């Protein structure tokens, strides 16, 4: 009987406090646990009793990396309750803001968090000494994303300019002009990023995942669409709760998600891309092929290339909309509270993000439910690590640990977002 234990007590280059525990007995993987000990956040509880109009600003505080995603799912759910429809220009600007977040998040992850794994560096700082121009370009790309979020979101971190019904203020054409110039630079930088990511040495691992993502009739999904899966699921976004369930697992402060009756599934770039390849422009599809991707990607390590493809898409989409930008006469449509339940899914950089709110006829929030992408992926991350370790048992512990961390970073997990309500029972005698 021989037992090996691989422990990573503090995962680096992921957001939040998490650990990994792998137990191998007699050369078989016995258990893999992604332990999330980031403390519970109680956001759903603190939304209760607040005004419907506060939800986008409160939920934007959940995450410093993807606040726009939280704002978007929140306003869409509220607008569903209030029966509000945005006109095309306002809808486009929401998309621009979301593109800004995708550029920031994917730019950071591709180069600064994930690439060091592929190139054998401990961190992006170590990588900068040998790949200076690459790191400079990465920072400049990320900054373009920051600038979009700052201009349309009102500030870089935890933006405050999105409201139920539209925006509080729209920037002038003069404010947008320098951003258009920088996006033109970013387009070429993002094209180069796709090919560069395609040139990285790529570990082999193929997952048999059920991919889940939004799908829109014309667009690569971001703000809206039906929920579809690679195994035939096709439901409206507001049917999420009928088909998905959350389960509390003892080793994690995040809830695990599962498709009812089917089990683990995967959200995020791999799923979005594989279910929506035909929604990318022909030029981007061609570049993806040049970078070694087919229309469906099953190697999770190739997520770095897929993120680069999505980064390019976000740059082109923001550029397309902003080149034709003229501020609308009204930055928002008027809203009047009424009682109801609203549900919305949007595509955060890390995957589908579900919100549900119930408000009363005064507009006070009675209940809120938030299902972030990392908790949806947690079970698949554990399955992936188990599969990868099973294939590489001959590696020494240090090498195995390196690859396990790299496998986790394939999902760019945002642990603070995933940390959820923790049930507390006090027994008194």
């Amino acid at each position, binding site marked *: 009987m021989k037992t090996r234990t691989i422990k990573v007590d503090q*995962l*680096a*280059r*992921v*957001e*939040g406090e998490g650990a990994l525990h792998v137990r191998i007995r007699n050369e078989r993987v016995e258990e893999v646990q992604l332990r999330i000990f980031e403390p519970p956040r109680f956001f759903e509880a603190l939304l209760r009793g607040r005004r419907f109009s506060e939800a986008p600003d409160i939920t934007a*505080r959940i995450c*410093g*990396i993807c606040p726009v995603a939280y704002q978007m799912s929140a306003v869409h759910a509220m607008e569903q309750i209030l029966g509000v429809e945005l006109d095309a220009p306002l809808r486009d600007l929401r998309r621009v803001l979301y593109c800004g977040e995708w550029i920031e998040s994917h730019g*950071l992850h591709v180069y*600064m*968090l994930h690439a060091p794994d592929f*190139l054998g560096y401990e961190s*992006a*700082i*170590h990588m*900068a*000494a*040998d*790949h*200076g*121009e*690459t*790191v*400079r*370009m990465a*920072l*400049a790309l*990320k*900054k373009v994303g*920051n*600038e979009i979020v*700052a*201009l349309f979101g009102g500030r*870089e*971190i*935890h933006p405050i300019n999105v409201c139920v019904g539209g925006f509080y203020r729209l920037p002038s054409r003069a*404010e947008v002009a*320098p*951003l258009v*110039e*920088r996006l*033109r*630079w*970013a*387009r*070429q*930088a993002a*094209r*180069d*990023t796709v*090919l*560069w990511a395609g*040139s*990285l040495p790529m570990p082999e691992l193929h997952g048999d995942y059920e991919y889940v993502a939004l799908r829109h009739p014309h667009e690569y999904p971001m703000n809206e669409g039906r929920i579809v899966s690679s195994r035939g699921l096709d439901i409206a976004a507001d049917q999420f709760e009928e088909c998905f369930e959350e389960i509390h697992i003892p080793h994690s402060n995040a809830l695990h998600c599962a498709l009812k009756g089917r089990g683990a599934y995967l959200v995020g770039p791999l799923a979005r891309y594989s279910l929506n390849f035909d929604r990318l422009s022909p030029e981007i599809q061609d570049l993806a092929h040049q970078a070694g991707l087919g229309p469906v990607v099953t190697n999770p390590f190739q997520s770095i290339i897929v993120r680069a493809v999505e980064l390019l898409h976000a740059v082109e989409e923001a550029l397309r909309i902003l080149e034709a930008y003229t501020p609308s006469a009204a930055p928002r449509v008027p809203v009047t509270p009424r009682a109801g339940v609203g549900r919305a899914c949007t595509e955060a950089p890390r995957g589908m993000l579900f919100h549900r709110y119930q408000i009363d006829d005064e507009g006070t929030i009675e209940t809120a439910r938030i299902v972030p992408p990392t908790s949806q992926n947690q079970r698949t991350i554990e399955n992936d690590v188990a599969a990868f370790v099973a294939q590489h048992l001959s590696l020494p512990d240090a090498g195995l640990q390196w690859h396990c961390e790299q496998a986790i970073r394939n999902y760019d997990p*945002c642990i603070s977002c995933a940390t959820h309500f923790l049930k507390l029972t006090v027994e008194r005698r």
Partner: protein
Amino acid sequence: MSGKQHSGWGMGDEGPGEGRPSGPRNLSEGASGDQPLPHPSSPTPHAPLVIGVGNRLRGDDAAGLLVADLLKGKLAEGAVVTSDGDAADLVILWEEVDSVIVIDAMVSGRVPGTVVRHDVAAESLPVAAFATSSHHFGLAEALEISRALGTLPSRLVVYGIEVEATSLGTPLSPQVVDAVHRVVDAVAVEVAREPAAGSSLASRRPRP
């Protein structure tokens, strides 16, 4: 004159890869798009750029921003800027500047309100004291990335102000407010000692 050569973001200003080493994974060649990324116009040497770093929503973490606010009335226009501390912002902000003074909150275990002056050109910043998140590249990372890139300003001083509380929505603690005023005075003196102090940064690109 600035000793640092700006090697271009889009590289279009110099032509693809010209005059720079370019390895197989070096993006400098491919990125020679038709549109170079606009960058700050030529800085004037010697004028220190003062950067206040922090988050106004998080109690004492606003200290660096408050120092910047108070210095804006005392120093030349454009000589004082604020930042949320994102490494992408900082690395680009100071890459063409010879002399920089940064003010940021720190958590080093000292008595709240303690001010520590680090000369970063001489030694690395203690990363742990200025780290904020495992997923965020902040001041300490920005310094080390700039050092690796060879774009660290030749003179870079960081004033760290030890914080007491950085919870969301809390007011500044009194010791930290005292420290803010002490740092304002110290930075004003330090800037006044520099030749051509504060004369010139008005030509910098305005921040969005």
